[in-house]
């Protein structure tokens, strides 16, 4: 039994449990736990779903309003963890060290998102956890119908809502 923390995401598509790799990605895990414990993720949606790539969420409410976040964190993508299927990584802007609350779940082995060099193109995306229960829920979400919603593309037509995120004791 690992001593890694676990977080349960209850969604309107079903529940999933995530194991967080505390040792390999300490800052990212602490950041994710902080948002979870604050209830930040409750009511946020998976707002960007691209089948065979990833599902991204944790930053917008159902009306596509972006929630205010804490300061960005350091990118820990150079920790050796790979963007493999069902792993979680931090989303960010084109600035490598700009991740705040949004994360994504890889739904394929996305090798091209892995760290290769400490440059703006090579930093990659910091993996910090993996879905260990409820991968079928991820499979259901990745296949939903998407469209454009105002400023955004690949937005699920029917909202995929994280109803509650809790740290599992």
């Amino acid at each position: 039994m690992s001593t890694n923390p676990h977080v349960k995401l209850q969604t309107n598509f079903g529940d999933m449990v995530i194991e967080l790799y505390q040792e390999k990605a300490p800052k990212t895990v602490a950041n994710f736990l902080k948002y979870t414990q604050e209830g930040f993720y409750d009511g946020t949606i998976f707002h960007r779903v691209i089948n065979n790539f990833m599902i991204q969420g944790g930053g917008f409410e159902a009306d596509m309003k972006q929630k205010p976040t804490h300061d960005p964190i350091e990118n820990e993508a150079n920790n050796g963890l790979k963007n493999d299927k069902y792993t979680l990584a931090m989303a960010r802007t084109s600035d490598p060290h700009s991740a705040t609350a949004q994360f994504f779940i890889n739904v394929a082995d996305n090798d091209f998102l892995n760290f290769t060099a400490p440059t703006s193109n090579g930093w990659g995306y910091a993996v910090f956890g993996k879905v260990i229960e409820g991968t079928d829920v991820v499979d259901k979400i990745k296949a939903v119908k998407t469209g454009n919603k105002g400023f955004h593309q690949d937005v699920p037509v029917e909202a995929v809502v994280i109803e509650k995120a809790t740290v599992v004791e």
Partner: protein
Amino acid sequence: MPGTVWLASDIHLGPQVPATQAAFHDFLDMAGRQADALVLCGDIFDAWVGDDAALEAAPPWLAATLEKLRQTASLIPLWLGRGNRDFLLGGQLARSLGAHLLPDTVRLHTDAGDILLSHGDEYCTADASYQRFRRIVRTPWIQRLFLSLSLKRRLRIAQYARQRSMAANRHKQQDIMDVAPQAIASAFRSSGLGLMVHGHTHRPARHELLVDGRACTRYVLPDWDYDHSIPPRGGWLAIGHGTMELRGASPQPQPQ
């Protein structure tokens, strides 16, 4: 300007970019709800031949955008700056929208610090022919003369100038249409500021640089194109308490 300030530029609105216009209207709605102030620093419109023309005889697409801008300005302070395309945009339009007109270069006090803000074309000093054109069209008496012409003649002159410019730009090297490093350094030096934001070049980025040993940061705003570009381009800079973040443009990660 305390609170959340959003900055955008280079939307290049015109009659033939309905998707870009729709995205921009959504952006204005969002700004009205989520920002404390909105600053649009140049080339909001792809062409501008006078405030009077826009206010008295706006085609439907333009009337819709002006109404949206008016709505936004009723919710939050709205600042409009002039670009190299819409340099004739003036106080008459700003007043009619309930917006404020920005000077060409301005020092913006924000919660993230003082920012040197402009459209950015003044830094493209390697493009001598453009700078010559810029000096001429920014001459007040020439502007007055142009604005005294009939709308039909103004439109004809604008179209001619645009064709000349496109033909000339085809033969210009890419790098002379970007900002000149010396011009950037000199602006940081003379302003004494460490933060700069501009648009114009359509090369969105965050650049870290040293000027006389001083760490400076330059943000370049993206241009917008939801009609011809896949994936669509567009976005803005969100300034908050100690934070500056480019948003909207190509959400990350992007598929391969």
